[in-house]
């Protein structure tokens, strides 16, 4: 554990570290801005009448929002990794999980390389290990060192 006082860390270093985690998009300002309207759209699904209108015609409902075509396609396809890449945040997107009546864990599993039964089994067995999942840079360095060894 790092016990150095983390205060007054430079924001650029801080943000760079956030991009160094494998398989993870941290919801920084960059993503918050990119996904602003996608997240606001998702949040609108907290209202029953909006859910009904969305379900009746997804495309028409989304056309009322200033979304990019990419964002609309990712949402229509329920391609949540793509949604994250386009600035979506899971707590906002969760309103769409709920609208679809999809259990949270099942929706989350669609972002992994597993089908839901396999994902569920992994969770029952204690979850995904952090080993080898902590740092992109560290993984690259380890891979390079290994190559050197040969």
């Amino acid at each position, binding site marked *: *554990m*790092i*016990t*150095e*006082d*983390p*205060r007054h860390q430079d924001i650029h270093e*801080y943000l760079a*570290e*956030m991009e160094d*985690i*494998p*398989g*993870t*998009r*941290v*919801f*920084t*300002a960059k993503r*918050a801005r990119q996904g*602003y309207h996608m*997240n*606001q759209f*998702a*949040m609108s699904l*907290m*209202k*029953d009448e909006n*859910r009904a209108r969305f379900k009746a015609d997804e495309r028409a409902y989304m056309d009322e929002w200033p979304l990019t075509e990419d964002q609309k396609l990712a949402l229509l396809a329920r391609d949540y*990794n793509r949604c*994250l890449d386009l600035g979506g*945040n*899971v*707590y*906002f997107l*969760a*309103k*769409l999980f*709920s*609208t679809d009546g999809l*259990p*949270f*864990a099942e929706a*989350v*599993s669609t*972002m*992994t*390389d597993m089908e839901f039964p396999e*994902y569920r089994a*992994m*969770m*029952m067995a*204690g*979850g*995904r*290990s*952090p080993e080898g*999942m*902590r*740092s992109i840079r560290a993984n690259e360095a380890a891979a390079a060192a290994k190559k050197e060894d040969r």
Partner: protein
Amino acid sequence: MARITAGVASSHVPLLGVASDFNKDRDDYFGPIFAGYDWTREWEKAEKPDVIILVYNDHASAFDMKIIPTFAIGCGERYKSADEGWGPRAVPDVEGHPDLAWHIAQSLVLDEFDMTIINEMDVDHGLTVPLSMMFGKPDAWPCKVVPLAVNVVTYPPPSGNRCWALGEAVRKAVESFPEDLNVQVWGTGGMSHQLQGPRAGLINKEWDNMFLDGLVGDSDHLRRIPHIEYLRETGSEGIEMVMWLVMRGALGKKTRALHRHYHVPCSNTAIGHMVLRPDNGEGLDMTGSDTVTAIAAE
């Protein structure tokens, strides 16, 4: 004088609310999770807290992207359960304690915390699930609640150090409130979980238990853990644990654990739960649970 008599930590996974609301809380899946709260439910009946200062985060329910407060304190009379996309939970309204809340808010601003005061909002599973876990299904919650919402969604959230310091200032504020109130501080969210991307499902039992260990005693080393460590070690949503530090900071220099529970999994998440007493000569009853619930799957 009001006084802080205990700190309670708990995960606030929405699925626990579903299990409680639909009476699945003793089935094979949820039974071992809820069993770890049985001691606390009995203990709370005896403790009879007047007010819970409930540290939680809003999950895109009360706050959208238009306004993102780092620290928001609820000073309203009451709060309704939010509709998070499947209709509001059928739980009682949450009654506020505006006298205490405004007192704390004013005191915190004097102590140079840049609080946002909220008078009207709905509260989501982050706040209502811990109430269900600790109190079951009463017709009305047995105490009042001061919601203290922390931004852990848009980066950066407040530092662990800032959260701990906020807890210290909350303690000072509570102790300067003239009415005789039994106040608990709850820190919610966590433990290990990642709800997004190919790395979803990450769980780190060792780290979580190191964190639980660190809440007990007189060390304050947890306040210096940087955000990146939570994310690397416990998943992107593990950052919610900074909210536990507000609770820990409010307990003063030293604490003792009365009860501890850890279980994997609940949905995507590791469940952690702990009951702490301040142990700085307050003379509180230190009777704890006989057993510490074993770490699941070990």
